Structure formats: structure tokens, C-alpha cells
């Protein structure tokens, strides 16, 4: 089971990182969302995987999962939402101010020119 979770974290991280490296704002926001999933799950599993041992105190059981990582992750999820919202609005603002959604805020013309010179360089 641990392997499955670890692989899931790894895949989400990979895809998130790949998206974060893209040149447009929207994929970047998607990438950050994926990375927040991965980070939250990563933090959560620091309390190790437990099944059916929720940290609700009752007289019937004495075995509980570790509640501390859960408390930390709970707020992290909400904060991640705040961050995503702020970023996407920033992206909108950039679009309206700069007229494009490139992460470096360059205009399409300049970008095309850069590509041409880059191609020239590689040749």
C-alpha cells in the first residue's frame, strides 16, 4: 500500500513540475495545484498510513492515527486554495495589463523573434 501512495505522490509531483515549467499562466496554475496535492499527501503520510483508526477519541479503542499532520494539512489545503485563487487572478491581471498570458509577460511578436534567434543559435 505504501508503494502505491508513494508512486501516486511521485507521479503527481512529476506532472506538476512539468506543468510549472510551461510558458503559459494557466498550465502553471494547474501545475501548482497538482504540486499542492502532492505536498499535502506527502505531509499527511508523514503520520504513516493507518486504516480505520481516525483520531476521534472513544472508549472502544486505544489505537489512533497521528492527528498532528492531519491538522497541518487541513489548513494547508485551505491556504493552497487561497494561493491558487490569488495566482489565477494575478494571471488575469497580467493578461489585461500585458495583453498576453506568457509567464514572462512578453508579447507574442517578441517571443516569435526569440524563438527564431534560439533556432539560429542551435544551428
Amino acid at each position, binding site marked *: 500500500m*505504501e508503494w*502505491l*501512495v*508513494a*508512486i*501516486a*505522490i*511521485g*507521479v*503527481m*509531483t*512529476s*506532472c506538476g*513540475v*512539468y*506543468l510549472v*515549467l510551461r*510558458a*503559459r499562466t*494557466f*498550465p502553471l*496554475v*494547474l501545475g501548482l495545484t*497538482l504540486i499542492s496535492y502532492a505536498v499535502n*499527501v506527502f505531509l499527511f503520510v*508523514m*503520520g*504513516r*498510513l*493507518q486504516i*480505520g483508526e*481516525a483520531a*476521534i*477519541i472513544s472508549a472502544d479503542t486505544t489505537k*489512533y*492515527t*497521528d*492527528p*498532528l499532520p492531519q*491538522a497541518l*494539512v*487541513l*489548513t494547508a*489545503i485551505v*491556504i*493552497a*486554495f*487561497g*494561493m*491558487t*485563487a*490569488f495566482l489565477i*487572478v*494575478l494571471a*488575469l491581471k497580467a*493578461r*489585461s495589463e500585458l495583453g498576453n*498570458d506568457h*509567464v*514572462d509577460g512578453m508579447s507574442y511578436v517578441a517571443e516569435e523573434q526569440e524563438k527564431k534567434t534560439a533556432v539560429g543559435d542551435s544551428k
Partner: protein
Amino acid sequence: MNLLAFNLPLVALIPFLGAPIAAWAARFNRLASAWVAGIVTFLSLLILMPVVHIPFDNDTLIQSWSWLPALGLDFAFRLDGLSLLFSFLILLIGLLVILYARYYLSPQDSMGRFFAYMLMFMGSMLGIVLSENLIQLVIFWELTSLTSFLLISYWQYSQDARDGARMALTITGAGGLAMLAGVLMIGNIVGSFNLTDVLASGDLIRQNEHYLTVLVLILLGVFTKSAQFPFHFWLPHAMAAPTPVSAYLHSATMVKAGIFVLARLFPVLSGTEAWGWLVGGAGMITMVLGAYTALFKHDLKGLLAYSTISHLGLITLLFGFSTKLAAVAAIFHIINHATFKASLFMVAGIIDHECGTRDMRKVNGLLKYMPHTAVLAMIAASAMAGVPLLNGFLSKEMFFQQSLVATDHHPLSWAIPIIVTFGAVFSVAYSLRFIHDVFFNGEPQGLTKTPHEPPRFMRIPVDILVLLCLGVGMVPVLIVAPILTVAVAASLQGVPPDYSLAIWHGFNLPLLMSSIALVFGAIVYFYREKLFRWHDENLPRVDAKTLFNRVTHGLLVLSGKISRLFDRGSLQNAISWVLLSGVAATLYGFLQFDSPLFGDRTLLDANLLTMVQVGILIVASILTAVMHHKRLVALIIIGVIGLIVSLGFVKFSAPDLALTQLSVEVVTIVLLLLALFFLPQHSPQERSHKRLTRDLVLSVSAGVTVMLLAMAVMTRDYSSISGFFLENSKPGGGGTNVVNVILVDFRGFDTLGEIVVLALAGLGIFALLENLRLPAPLRDIDGREWSHDPHPPIMQTLTRLLFPLMLMVAVFIFMRGHNLPGGGFIAGLIAAVALISQYLANGIAWTNARIKVDMHKVIAIGLTAAFVTGFAAMFLSYPFLTTTFTYLKWPIVGKFEIASAMIFDLGVFLVVVGATVLILVELGKLSHASHSLAQQEKK
């Protein structure tokens, strides 16, 4: 409250307090700021007065407060003879300079700014000389660098002033950093930063293996500040400052700060061979070089600048001799130099003021235009040359005497008196030039105005200073002996040696040297034309400014190159470097340990359902990455991932997390959908295969690293601090849902911070969207027109019906949160979803008309509730955010728990609702506005 218990810090801090007042007073009357500066300086002096007798009783006054006790740091001030002498110099000459500047500054200059800078500088200088703690001394030291920067660049419009100020700041500031390092090492060796302890540990420091390093670091600070070779070149460029600034900084204060530290640490660092070579060597070169160069400067202030350098070299050389009598001579010359140099700078300012130029090739024959000033200048310049019956003569005699005896055990000691006399010859020659060229030597050449005497009060400071030169020169025992004795005692930390301040010592070698200097000085000046020509033709021009500019420019270019290696103005590149170093650091961390990568904890068995879920998650993740060009599709797929993550939380005993993730997922997707409306529907394909490969490698290695790290942790057992939370949740926090009790009780302060962040994000978004205009696309991605029926009736009806039910769920989740999965965060999100669904189904106008709640207020009330819960506990003298709870018995409901933490949780709830709804509705309004915008355009 006894003022005398803390008057020393007041002396240094009052000028800082006075500075804004001086600046403010100038708004009403430009002369008012001069008055304020004068009164503040006088006040400082007044506060110092009651303790002035202490050094004369051979006592040291220390006033100290604990600052950082863990590091052994005190906020401590000290008054002994040396501090007293320097305080007097700073305050008295400060007063004279303020009086002078009041007449010097023209109506165009901002008086408020000048006097505010001046006072801040004065406070910093007083801080240096009154500090008992060495770290504190360095802080004031750097403050003088900063404030002198402001003073030198006072005429901001002048390129020279800006350059000069920047050079002074770079050199002296860097020296200050070196000195800080030296002071830290001293503190490390002695175990204390207090001067009292340091001064008592001279042997300990000199015998330490790092003595040489300490010495060099401290001397770097001293030499840069006191303009010693090879750091002397900033001082002439600082002459771009207004003349009162030069008179103050380069006679009594700034450059004397370095000398002060030499005198202060004399008992600790001096007496070694390294000290002799470094301090004496730098002093001697500086003295001769300064005196020689001064003669060739045609600018009055340039001459004075190099003369200052030369005299500072003389004082440094005296300290380099390491004998007690040399220290007496050094401190005596500090006083004398301050008096005659301040007056000479003021004269130079007067001449500049009255003639419009300071060029000695133009300014000639001023004796008949300003006889009074001429007499003053001649006396002061003679003191500088070392003419008998003036103060400069006395200290120069002592200096000659020391140059003969101080090093008589050294094989090279015969050379010292010769070099020293050579320097003195030029000193006489440039003094003579100052007198003859300016006040005699024919008629003024090409002046734009006819010079005349300055205003009476502008001359008074010069009068006073020149009287002092005369008084000290004729009756030294009366005027200077008492303060000199206590200052020397403090510098040496012992009984001052026997010395004689007599004017006449009989025919001896020092007198011969004085005479040689006077005679040959006159000869050199007489043949100056030839010398000037020889100097111009045969000596290479070394312009330190060009060199300095080249070095600083080179450093800038180099650092620019280094940062461009990583940052080429592209976010993608920058992120790549950050990620790459993150991955590298983690992998390097793995290599640091020789234990196996994975531990031996018993793992859980995998089951089919989980495998399927993880399979879906992997496919969805990869699809998101691959399909990101089709933005809408990618957004829908990412929703799948969020759902699976929340299912995972359910599986692994985290019901609170599952609920939170689920509700956050809903609002996130709605949010991104709203935003996507305004962004291009497609991302253009990136064509660079090189970049794609690089990114692929980077992202896969990041993923693998994180996976390994997660696995390495999960396969090991651990012990957690959570036992405490589990045990105390019910008895201490009154709730059985430990996660919620941690959030609102054990770690409530964290949560408080987090809701503040959320509130700020909401408000920030509100501000960003204010006045944002984005045209909506007229057609969707496939060319279809947008539907004009945005609110389908079935959805409208259903959401309206469901609304009370949804709110009921939110209340239910909130109420049970303390004991069962739920709580303020989750309830807040559910309530937000309920509200947003109304907006989505019925439109903003319809909903706003019915829900008349300002979300800003909701956020504010929420934050207030959370803070009030915290402060209420403090009110009852418990720590911040302490909670309490009790059980009530209500009819029908039964036994019911009520906890103060619930008010806090209510605050959380309100902030979450407020921020979430605010964000989404603002974004929705934007889309609403742009729709009508687009429709108008269409019509």
C-alpha cells in the same frame, strides 16, 4: 526618575530625536531649523554637564542595560577622559559649525534637510565615543558612514557630490564591516563585548593566535575611516560637500572616529611589532604623501583635504610608535588639528562664498578686501605649519621628539626623523601657499564679484577657534592640560607619563627640526613654479577615482554575469534552477547516510480497490500534463485527481481532510472555470524539443526523488508528539475530534495566522480585480456563440430549494466539529458552496438583491471573533488563546457542551465563508461586466 541614571544614552540619542524636529521646523521658517539644531546640541551638552567631573576624579561612568543577555550583549554607555574629550570636540565644534552653516547655506538650499542630517551625524559620532559595548560602537560607526553619505551628497543635483558620497560610503562602510568582524573576534577571545573587560585583556588578545587577523580587521576599519593610505582617496572627493560639512567631518568628527578607535584600543592592540609596522607604516606614508600632494592642489578645499590626510597620518604614526609619550602627543594633536583645521575650512567656505571660486590661481590679494578674515586665516595656517606660540607648534615638537626616541632600538630608526622632517617641510610649504597665494600675490583674477568681509556672525566661529589656537599655543597648561591628562589616562588605561607642555625646551633636536621645516618650507614655496612644472612633467597621474570606478564597475559586471547564468529574465529558467538545486540537495542528502534507503516497518497490504484508484490518479495526472493545451479538458481531469485524493484521505483515517479536500475541490474548479473564461482556451504548442526533453528529465527526477523520500519515511517507525494531543484532547480541550482540537486549541495561534492569510488573499484579489476590464470572447473554443440563457430554470428551482438544507448541513458540520469530523474550515467551505451555487444558478444581481451581506464585513467580524477569543483569555490572565469549556443541560437537546474554542472556530468559519465568496463573486462580477461589454460591442 533620576535623569543622571541614563543621561549618557540621552546625550547620543537626543540629536536623533531632534533631527525630525529640525526638518519639520523648516516648513515654517528656514532659520528655525538652525535654531532647533543649535538648541538640541546645546541640550545634549547640558545633559552631559552633571557628569563631566567624573573623569577628572579618575573614575569611569558606565550606564548599562541588558540587551541580549543570551549573547552577553548590553546596551551600555561609558564616560571616561577619552570619551569626554571627543564629546566636547563633537558638541562644541558642532555648535560652531551650526552657527556657521546658518549663514553659509543659500536660500535655495533646504535648511531642514541639512540640519536634520547634521544632527543625525552628530548623534552617531557621540554614540561611537560614548559606547561601552563594542558591537554597539560598530553600529554607531556604520551610522556615521550612512549619515555622512547623506551630508556629502547634500547637493544631490551635483554629479560630483553623488560620486563622492558613494565613494565615501563604499570605502568607509566596507571598512566598518571589516571592523565588525574584528570586534566579533575580540569578543570571542575575551568572552565579552564590554570595553571594560576588553581593555583589561590586552595580554590575552596579543598572545592569541588570531591576534594578527584581529589587528588587520580593526585597522581596515580605522584606516578607511581616517583616510589612511591606501584608502585615503575618498576624502578629497568628499570635498564636494558643502563646506560646513567638510569643516565638521574632516576636522573634529568623521575622520577622527578611526583615530578614536586607535586611541581606545591602544592598550589592547599596541606594542607589538605588527602594530608598529602596520600603524606606523601607514601613518608615515599617509603623512608624507598627503603633505606633498597638498602643495599641488589649486583648489583651496583640495589643499585642506590633503593636509587633513597628512595630519591624520601624523597622528596615526604617533600611535604606531606605541610609547606612552607618543600617545600623549597624538591626543594633543587631535585637539589642535580639530581647532585649526575647522577654522581653515570655514575660512575656505567664506572665501568661496565671497569670491564665487576656490581656485588659488584666481583668488589672490584678499588681504585688503577682508583683512579680519585674512588675519584669522593666517594665524590658523601658521598653527597648521607649526609656527611657535601656536598650538600646532607644541604638538609638532612632541611629535619630532618622539620620532627621535620612540624607535631607537630599531636598525632603521635613523630614517624616521628624516622622513618626518621631509613631510614637515611640505606641510610648511602648503600652509605658506594658503597664506601667500590667497591673501597676497597680486590682485584677484577674473572674479565675478568683489569680495568683502562675511556677515559678522559667520566669522564668530572662526574667531573662537583661532583664539583657541592662540590660547593653547601660549598658555597650554591652563587651557588644555587638564582634559589632555584625563584623556591620555583613559586611552592608556593607566597613569599618564610625565610630559611637559612648556613652550620653550631650550635648543634641542626637535627645535632644529622645526627650524629646518620652516626654512626649507619657505624655500620650497619660493621655487614652487619650477616644482609644479617638474611635478606635472615627471610624475605619473594616479587617479584613484578612475581606478575605484573601474573596480566597482567590474564587480557590478561580474555579479551581473553570475546572476545571468541563472536568471535570463525568464521565469521558466529561474524555476528550473530552483527545482534542479532542490532535487540535487535532496539526492545529496540521501548520500550522506549509510543506512539503507528503506526501513523495515511492516507495510500494509495493497488491495485491488486502492490499486484501481491509484491507477486512475496516475492516468489523470499524466493526462493533465499531456493535455494541458486543451485547457478546459485539463481542468476537468484535474478535478478527478482532487476527488481521488479525498477518497485516499477517507481510506487512511483522515475524515476531516477528506471533507475539506472535497469542498475545496468544488470551489477551486468553479474558480478556475471562471478565470478560464478570460484566458486563451488553448496554449500554443512549444516547439523547442530541447526544452521539452530538459523539462521532462527534470520533472521525472523530481517525482522520483519525492517518491523515494516519501517511501524512506513511510517504511520507518517513529515516535510522535501526538501522544500528548490524544491524551489531553478530551480532558484539556473538551473535544474528542483531536484534529479539530489541535486546530482551534492546541495550535490555535497557527490557525489564527492562517485565517489572516486567507483574509488577506481575499482582500488582495478584491484589490487586483478592482477596475480590471477584460473583454469576454464572443464565441467559445469551437466557434459556437455563448448561450444567452445562463440560468436554466431546473437548476434555479433546485438550488433555491436546496439552499436552506445546505446551510443546515454547514451548521451541523460546524456544531459537531469539536467531537466528530467537521469544524469551522469545512463548515465554512460548505456554506460558501451553498452561497456560490445560488450565484451560479440565479445570477449575481438576483442573489445580491436577496443576500445583502457585505463579505468584507463577514471577514472582519470573523477575524475579530478569533482575536477576541485570544485576548479574552489574556484578560483573565491566561496565555493568549487559552480556551475553556463547560457542559450545559438544555431541554430536549440534552447535555450540551459549550467551549470558548467554538467562538474561535466561528471566526474561522466566517473568514473562510467571507474570503471564498468574496473571491468567487468578484470574479463572477467581472465575467458579468465583460459579457455586457461584449454585447455592447456586438451591437
